[in-house]
């Protein structure tokens, strides 16, 4: 019975997805948009319910699964993302030719996988949950099957995703082969008691796992898929990739490296620092010439993976908490951006940045929402992204007090902030500084307006009153024995 308690959220979301499929098969509801709103509402209730679940210290299922504060933090994040993405999907549904309800259901199955990743405490469950997320996303990315870009996105994601899954499982095999365990707690204990540096086969395994997880968070060297897939996939799926899938990748990365591999942090922290720097530069420099907003956000999401890797590379309590805080606020910020993009593109049918010209006049609310989210991504106070970046850079500077080389990473981080401001302001310039050719107002539905208000309020409130989210993320980060 206790075990069911641990996985109740996963069960809830998966069951609701199956119910949707069955109802649609036997007694279809003609208004697909309404179904989407209902699904989103249900998930929102589940999100509220999740605050009643208490964390448990002991692992479940023979050490496979954890329901600690860290897991709950991520589960809430995924439920939030799912609710908003379902809202977007409902808004987007007229553009889907067939299988709208299946689209919702697939999103929910994908979210089930994400909910599992939050609790992973064993390489076996890691692989299973990762595959559940990735396989549903292959289908979702190519859902607009008569549109070539969407098919291209799905295929690219499939091929690179399969390759990186191969890397992951190969790495797990090496780690299991050299240590004889797949459980993170046992692995940490073993590595702790081991004298001398770990063997080459073990290090190779760690490298392969890092590469496989790097695909999920779109870090160098497995980041090239992101811009193409972000551009081609249906916009709600892009949002889910940016918010949910990336957070799932970071949840796994933190679990593997901070729970399982922490005793050998000397082996990997330098490498992650280098990857963080390279990812920051690739994402932010690559975004400069872009003129398609989804592609721009693809590069931007690579850049943000770089910022968060800075926190991972710092290997201190501040860094772990900073990554969690950043993911939390990043969800609101990105969801706000994608909500606004969906609302605009339903009217203009174009993702090109010039088609956002004069948005401030065509629809003041959409203009403000998109502008604020761009500024939050750029890290401008009083918006939430600002504090996230301060925490991450602070974590690196704290680490630099003992290891001077980390100042180089901090320098790359601040250079990236300046570069990123340039292209985010490029979107801002279109919204406010340029005149539209077509000045007809853009209308938005009530649920959409509600979603936008929630995200905007969250960006501003978290940006000014940082304390609740900071406390929650620092609390969640305490599950790792970091100083």
């Amino acid at each position, binding site marked *: 019975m206790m075990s069911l308690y641990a996985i109740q959220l996963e069960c809830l979301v998966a069951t609701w997805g199956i119910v949707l499929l069955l109802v649609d098969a036997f007694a279809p509801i003609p208004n697909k948009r309404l179904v989407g709103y209902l699904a989103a509402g249900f998930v929102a209730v589940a999100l509220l319910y999740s605050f009643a679940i208490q964390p448990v210290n002991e692992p479940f299922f023979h050490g496979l699964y954890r329901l600690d504060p860290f897991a709950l933090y991520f589960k809430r994040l995924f439920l939030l993302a799912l609710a908003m993405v379902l809202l977007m999907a409902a808004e987007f549904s007229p553009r889907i030719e067939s299988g709208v309800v299946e689209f919702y259901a697939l999103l929910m199955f994908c979210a089930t996988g994400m909910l599992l990743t939050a609790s992973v405490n064993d390489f076996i469950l890691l692989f299973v949950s990762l595959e559940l997320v990735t396989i549903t996303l292959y289908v979702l990315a190519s859902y607009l099957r008569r549109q070539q870009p969407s098919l291209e996105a799905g295929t690219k994601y499939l091929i690179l995703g399969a390759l990186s899954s191969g890397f992951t499982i190969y790495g797990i095999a090496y780690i299991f082969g050299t240590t004889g365990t797949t459980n993170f707690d046992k692995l940490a204990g073993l590595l702790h008691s081991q004298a001398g540096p770990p063997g080459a086969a073990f290090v190779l395994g760690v490298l392969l796992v890092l590469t496989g997880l790097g695909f999920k968070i779109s870090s160098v060297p497995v980041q090239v898929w992101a811009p193409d897939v972000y551009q081609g996939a249906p916009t709600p799926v892009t949002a889910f990739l940016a918010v949910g899938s990336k957070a799932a990748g970071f949840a796994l990365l933190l679990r593997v490296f901070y729970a399982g591999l922490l005793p050998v942090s000397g082996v990997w922290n330098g490498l992650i620092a280098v990857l963080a720097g390279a990812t920051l530069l690739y994402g932010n420099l690559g975004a400069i010439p872009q003129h398609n907003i989804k592609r721009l956000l693809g590069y931007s999401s690579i850049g943000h993976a770089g910022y968060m890797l800075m926190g991972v590379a710092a290997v201190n309590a501040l860094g772990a908490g900073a990554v969690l805080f950043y993911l939390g606020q990043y969800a609101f910020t990105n969801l706000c951006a994608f909500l606004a993009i969906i609302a605009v593109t339903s009217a203009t049918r174009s993702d090109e940045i010039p088609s956002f010209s004069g948005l*401030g006049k065509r629809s*003041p609310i959409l203009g403000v929402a998109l502008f604020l989210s761009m*500024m939050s991504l750029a890290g*401008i*106070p*009083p918006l939430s992204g*600002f504090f996230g970046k*301060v925490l991450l*850079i*602070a974590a690196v*500077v*704290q680490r*630099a*007090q003992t290891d001077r080389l980390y*100042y180089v990473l*901090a*320098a790359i981080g*601040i250079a990236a*902030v*300046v570069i990123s*401001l*340039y292209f985010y*302001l490029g979107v*801002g*310039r279109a919204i*406010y*500084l340029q005149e539209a050719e077509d000045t007809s107002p853009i209308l938005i539905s009530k649920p959409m307006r509600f979603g936008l208000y929630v995200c905007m309020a969250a960006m501003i409130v978290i940006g000014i009153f*940082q*304390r609740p989210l*900071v*406390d929650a993320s*620092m609390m969640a980060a305490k599950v790792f024995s970091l*100083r």
Partner: protein
Amino acid sequence: MDILLTIAVLLPLIAAFVLFLFPARKPKAIRALAIFATGVSLLITLTLFGKFDRTSGGYQFVHSIPWLPSYGCSLKFGVDGISMTLLLLVGFISFCGTLISTEIHDREKEYYILFLALTTGISGTFATMDLFFFYFFYEMAVIPMYLLIGMWGSLPPGKHGRTKEYATMKLTLYLTAGAVLALVGLLAIYFVGGTLDIERLQHSIWLSRNTQMTAFPCLLFGFGFLASMWPFHTWSPLGYAAAPTAASMMHAGVLKKTGAYGIIRLALPLLPEGARHWANLLAVLACFNILYAGWAAMTQKDWKFVIGYSSVSHMGYVFLGIATLNLVGVSGAVLLMFAHGLMAALTFALIGFFYHQTHNRYVPDLSGLARKIPFIGVCMVMAVMASSGLPGFANFVSELMVFLGSWQRGSVVFRVATICAVWGIVVTATYMLRAVRASFFGPLDEKWSMLKDAVTLRQKFPYALLLAALLTVGFWPRLLTDIIQQSVATSIVSRLSTGAEAQAASPAMVHDAGAAR
């Protein structure tokens, strides 16, 4: 009582949030609320100035709200003589800026929201006593500026070949680059010093020599970007030229001063050894500011570019005052920030007044304007005299203090720097007087016969207010110098004159690196 300061700082921001929810159809009410917020904020600041204890150099009206206790961060406001002076400056300029914004007839709601947010960003920087909020407010001022220039600005085509979009992007990127550079220095101070409280850092913590040496250039150049330090000044004249009048006033008047304030408030007292090490370099850069920008101003034909380069040049005197590291020099720098802020704001307001009617501010095209707009002409002549450092204006007193402080240092570098700086006064007088003669005197061009002067009291008030403040301090400098010198003596010079050995002798002052960890 103590909460009054917090109210004065946050009131414009609160008004901005209220405006956010306001219907855009009612521009008159929106403008009235903005005037009310900045006006009340100025009144409170004046009240606090009246109640200010002139014998104490420490922080007064301290009010603190715990914010992030786990990091020791609190929303703490308090002023000493230095920040009180600058807060007064913000009060005057933001109030006059809202008053003269009558020319804005497009998207008023957004305009006033941004203007008010900018005001709180700047006054918050001056009034906060917490390192995190210092950076928070400092950064907050950047984006309103971007939009103010981009949406309501204007940049007549010229030899520079730039658009206002280019100007505003350049400004934003430069300011952000400076801010993030300063951030790294501030974080290093936090991790070594173990606290975010500026007062504690100033009085009871002595950072290790290594930290001081490396953090000082981060702060100096980081804040230097915003204070238009040569060679990082190129964004500044272009930005002023493209900005709408009130934004130019805020920018030249106060926003730029936050950079110099950052150096005075944080870099000097927290990193005194670093300051001693880098002082000569700063003095040399200050001379480049004064002379290079002065000569650049000579060749300008656009009024706003003339004042833009002149303001870069004047920041050179502020830098020189800071570099002296002595009581007279640093106090002079603070007073000069006040005086120059008022003068620059006044000049930009006056340019805005005639530009609004002529749509031309190209000096050779203007002639004899004083015949049609005598009030504006008189004010302009006064502003130019203040700028050239004539006795009777606050600028004279402060520049004299900077020269005295700099000469006192005695080393060759500072002797040469002083001579350069005094020569800079001649340069300033040349281009300022030339510009005012060419455009306000001489025969009246037919084109400008339709100009209307400021006649009603309401129109004249903002200019008169700025001028009155400038003259009051000019004739009675002790009004401000007393409190400035008190604070400079207690919080800055006392730290600069103590060596590391003396600090190490008292164990309480030594702070071991790593307390934050």
